[in-house]
């Protein structure tokens, strides 16, 4: 589905930003809507996705995992095999190409787990633009490998010490930078969040995931999947996987949020599971907030899901019942991380492991004849430190 002219998916979305940014956002909207249909732009984009990113990524039938769970047939969409190690690069190549089109010379981004930061740093290096990435001090500690990678790519990593020192605060700082430097700076947002047109634009850049899945599954199974499962933080890999199948009503969507220590504690990031409607980072969507409208601190073992908001299209999917949103705990994630690595020979990112953990818990709920596609959004090399610390 497409949002309305003002960027609303149902009642969610919109554009709640300081006046200083309005011009840049309108310029981006115009350029994006023009380029979206531009043959040359799309050829360029798909050229880079093919030769630089390594698309299409495989749709892999996980024989061992399927046998172990004795449930449905489980396929994994291998975004972990993208250049830089996650789906994030699908979006950053697109946005940095747009930045060049508009004539901006400086790129900024926020990052949680560091995957979006690395993907932005990579695209900026490729296209010869200056790049600065905001990252919470807490995340710099827990994802140090990615900090080193960004530096190697010529990007400046700016530590953020305000608030909870995680993804939310990195976005705040990136927005403040953008407000101050909007004339020459392009803000590459990493998830399907933020003011219109970002949720739509990021979704569309990531929808390459779902489009490939459709084609690949039709060719091996001759049919569409019964269910799609993906982790949801801001929700870019999941919306990229789901959105292509929006009108295929028989395809179920399950979004898996970070349950942290459990939804009965304050230490989780399950925005759709436990949040309420509000306005954060330029968009009206579900958020985690207290009764006075202050944003709550969040927790997740995975830095990439540790965020109190979610893309507005997911809020719409939740409210309309198109998708179901669930959560798994840190503990369940750690267990799945080991098991999956050992039996399948793939070390998944802790973010993506949320989707794997959901399947482990719920395989019995599916029919054996069902076909499920799980989004494996990133690889887990970056997470060995956190995993060790939590055991």
């Amino acid at each position, binding site marked *: 589905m497409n949002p309305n002219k*003002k960027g609303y998916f149902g009642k969610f979305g*919109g*554009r*709640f*930003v*300081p*006046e*200083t*940014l*309005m*011009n*840049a956002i*309108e310029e981006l909207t115009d350029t994006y809507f023009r380029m979206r249909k531009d043959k040359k732009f799309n050829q360029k984009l798909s050229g880079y996705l093919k030769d630089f990113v390594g698309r299409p990524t495989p749709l892999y039938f996980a024989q061992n995992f399927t046998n172990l769970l004795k449930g449905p047939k489980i396929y994994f969409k291998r975004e972990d095999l993208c250049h830089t190690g996650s789906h994030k690069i699908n979006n950053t190549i697109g946005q940095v190409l747009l930045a060049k089109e508009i004539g901006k010379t400086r790129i900024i981004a926020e990052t949680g787990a560091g995957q979006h930061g690395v993907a932005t740093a990579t695209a900026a290096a490729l296209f010869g633009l200056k790049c600065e990435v905001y990252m919470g001090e807490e995340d710099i500690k827990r994802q140090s490998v990615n900090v080193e990678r960004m530096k190697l790519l010529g990007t400046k990593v700016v530590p953020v010490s*305000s*608030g909870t020192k995680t993804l*939310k*605060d990195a976005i*705040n700082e990136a*927005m*403040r930078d953008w*407000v*101050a*430097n*909007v*004339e020459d700076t392009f803000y590459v947002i990493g998830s399907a969040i933020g003011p219109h047109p970002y949720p739509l634009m990021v979704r569309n850049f990531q929808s390459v995931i779902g489009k490939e899945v459709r084609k690949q599954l039709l060719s091996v199974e001759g049919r569409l999947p019964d269910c799609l499962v993906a982790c949801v933080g801001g929700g870019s890999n999941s919306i990229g996987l789901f959105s292509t199948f929006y009108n295929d009503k028989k395809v179920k969507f399950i979004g898996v949020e970070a349950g942290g220590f459990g939804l009965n504690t304050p230490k989780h990031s399950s925005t759709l599971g436990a949040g309420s409607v*509000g*306005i*954060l*980072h*330029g968009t009206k969507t579900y*958020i985690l*907030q207290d*009764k*006075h*409208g*202050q*944003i709550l601190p969040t927790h997740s073992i995975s830095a990439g899901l540790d965020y109190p908001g979610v893309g507005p299209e997911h809020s719409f999917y939740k409210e309309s019942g198109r998708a179901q949103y669930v959560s798994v705990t840190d503990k369940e994630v750690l267990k799945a991380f080991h098991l999956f690595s050992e039996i399948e020979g793939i070390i998944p990112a802790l973010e993506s492991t949320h989707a794997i953990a959901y399947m482990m818990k719920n395989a019995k709920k599916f029919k054996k004849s069902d076909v499920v596609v799980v989004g494996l959004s990133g690889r887990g090399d970056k997470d060995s430190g956190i995993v060790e610390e939590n055991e």
Partner: protein
Amino acid sequence: MNRLEKKLKKLKATGRKALISYITAGYPNIGSTKKIVSCLESSGTDIIELGLPFSDPIADGPVIQHSSHKALERGMTPQIILQIISRIRKTSQIPLIIMTYLNPVYRYGVERFFADASKAGLDGMIIPDITPEEGRVIINLSKKYNISVIFLITPTTVKSRQGFILEKSRGFVYVVSITGVTGPRKEFHPSIIQFLKEIRRKTKKPLMLGFGISHPQQLKKVKNLVDGVIIGSAIVKITGKPTQSAINEALKRFLKPFRAELDRRTNGN
């Protein structure tokens, strides 16, 4: 006409430039806010902006981020700011404006907030993360509850939107002096003069210049092009002093030269 609009009319009639002071409500503590308001009023402030703190103030620099954080720690809430306003109204008729972000108001219930604020004695609202495009609801409530909804115009606002903002803003227009977040700056960008002249030609509404104002010399070049100035972070910084008497003394000393500069008649424009 509410107190703000009456005051603006009177200022215009007497040719006096407005001094608008911003403080973060609840900083350095809940009890101090009423006292600081009364000190600001007696130091030559014409209009007061009370910041209702939000946990994620993306349009604010370090000073207001810090004061917001502290005020929230002290327990500041929308309910409490409205109580403070009611209490101020027992002794003062100075125009009061709440500046905040949308989420705390949304959570309270936008209409309920306007209704309760109107009862408490509020005159204006500034919500920097709402532009007039998203402002239909608050513009309607503005009429219903007689609270001026003030919009911001910035140096990056394109010409085609300037007229729209100037038309929708009620009471006065908040003219942002810089491309950036709130916080003290040494001087304005030279292009500010051109920008002010341009919007001055387009509206008769009062123009109030804010963001980055921290010393009176800055006003010399711009004061004839605007109807007043808004001082925020520089005042908030002073309100962080440890005792009420230190705060009062420092505020008086700080505001005096601003008042003097605004009141000094100069030629030309």
